[in-house]
């Protein structure tokens, strides 16, 4: 029943998103909406490994940037359409995720996080030295002028991102409620005990890291069409890593709703800050918000309110 309701809401959102460009003419809505949706995909994707599995990936920038540049590469190489760019990003993101999954074999905790952070620097350096995708100068990506049903390129990528957001949430929700979610919760708590209970911890971590990586890379893929210009510093920005971590933490990492709330909240604050005060202050505000939430609601907003609404639970 709950699944049915979820499915209906998801379909309604997609249908509404498809018609929105013909109702709302203000382009800013789609510019801002794209960012919010991208944050939702990143946040949800990150949470599958970080929240459910307990492996804090600090390399979200590497995944988003890789996705962005996979799109640039495919565009430059074969003038790939958007869906193929997204698919390509998913594949390389998934492979990078697998590599990160293997890292968990050797390193855990904060060391894992540092290693994933280093990944961003490595990939950034590779792109900076690769002329085919624009190197340090950046790449200009001009999307074809026709987008079928969609009047402008921004409304087109907005809808693509909406589809990705709905898909990633559906995937996260399914993982969370299935045997995979319970296996991840078990290995997050205690890998040895999980193994003894029959959980194939390595396989599960590899699969989860690949899914998480694919989603974050897919979030980066529509960016070249959206911005029509890409350069490595922005694509591999440390802000992605910070935000990917901050959003689930703000919302709560144990449920798919947490990263969603966190993403909407954070992008909302960022958008508000961008239009009212100089943009450099954005990051500072995000930092303060994160500190505030860690102090006030260490288990995220969901737990903060969940404690009151579910009397059966003991804090």
């Amino acid at each position: 029943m709950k699944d049915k309701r979820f499915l209906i809401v998801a379909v309604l959102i997609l249908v509404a998103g498809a018609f929105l460009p013909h109702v709302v003419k203000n382009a800013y809505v789609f510019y801002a909406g794209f960012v919010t949706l991208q944050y939702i995909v990143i946040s949800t994707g990150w949470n599958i490994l970080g929240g459910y599995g307990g492996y804090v990936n600090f390399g979200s920038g590497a995944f988003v940037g890789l996705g962005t540049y996979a799109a640039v590469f495919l565009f430059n190489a074969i003038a790939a359409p958007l869906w193929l760019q997204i698919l390509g990003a998913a594949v390389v993101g998934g492979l990078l995720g697998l590599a990160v999954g293997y890292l968990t074999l050797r390193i855990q905790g904060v060391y894992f996080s540092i290693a994933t952070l280093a990944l961003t620097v490595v990939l950034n350096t590779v792109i900076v030295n690769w002329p085919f995708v624009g190197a340090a100068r950046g790449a200009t990506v001009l999307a074809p002028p026709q987008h079928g049903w969609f009047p402008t390129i921004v409304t087109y990528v907005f809808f693509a991102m909406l589809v990705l957001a709905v898909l990633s949430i559906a995937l996260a929700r399914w993982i969370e409620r299935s045997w995979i979610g319970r296996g991840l919760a078990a290995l997050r708590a205690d890998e040895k005990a999980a193994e003894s209970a029959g959980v194939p911890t390595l396989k599960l971590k590899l699969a989860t890291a690949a899914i998480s990586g694919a989603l974050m890379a897919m979030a980066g893929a529509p960016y070249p069409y959206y911005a029509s210009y890409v350069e490595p510093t922005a694509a591999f920005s440390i802000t992605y890593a910070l935000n990917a971590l901050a959003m689930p933490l703000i919302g709560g990492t144990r449920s798919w709703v947490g990263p969603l709330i966190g993403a909407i909240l954070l992008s909302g604050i960022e958008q508000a800050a961008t239009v009212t005060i100089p943009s450099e202050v954005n990051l500072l505000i995000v930092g303060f918000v994160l500190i505030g939430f860690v102090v006030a609601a260490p288990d995220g907003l969901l737990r903060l309110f969940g404690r009151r609404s579910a009397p059966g639970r003991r804090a």
Partner: protein
Amino acid sequence: MTETILAVRDIWKRFGGQPAVAGVTLDVERGEKLGIIGPNGSGKTTLINCITGVLKPDQGTVTFEGADISALPAYRRARRGIARSFQIPRPFVGITVAQNVMVPLDYVDDVDNPVARTRELLKLVGLESRADHPAESLTHLELRKLELARALAAEPRLLIADEVMAGLSETEIDEVLATLFALNDRGVTVIMIEHIMHAIMRFSQRLVCMETGRIIADGTPHDVGKDPEVRRVYFGEQASH
């Protein structure tokens, strides 16, 4: 007719210099109730870890139901029917008590109605009222019960109970023993590691005593209890005089 369910051959495990397990060879019959005693640090838990795959022994083989499982990771051994409880409870915090029990049901044995089976298991260990509580809210005692429920969940053919009774009251010890006896009646082989002597004496058909990584006595609880070597290491020097 007896059949060897578990055959341990010449297992060695070193942490640094001193071997924790030094050449243990042990056969366990199907349906047997085997007790393992020995002072702290005598290598009991290390041996169990080598059998269940939590640790890789430096040398030696483990055969379960005729198949060499020495190279299998812990989860594959669990799926073959070896379950264990941990000496120090290792709950899956962050999920509920019922979900804890469902993990082995998900991964080891594909039961038709995991919800009903979970309820049944929790009832068996007396945790049914705590089913929807987070695992981290349990008392130490309840955690031990959860540990047992989780080990029993996937209907193992070999259960290794590593000090499941430590810290329990006499009544609770009786309850756990009754559970283990009932399980054994259904054909489950049980290896029990315990410091509570009267419990392990009552439970075991056969008793093994370990000391500095070796088996120093193997026989009926009566004989092992009278063994002078066992009395010396287990009850202290003065007991043998």
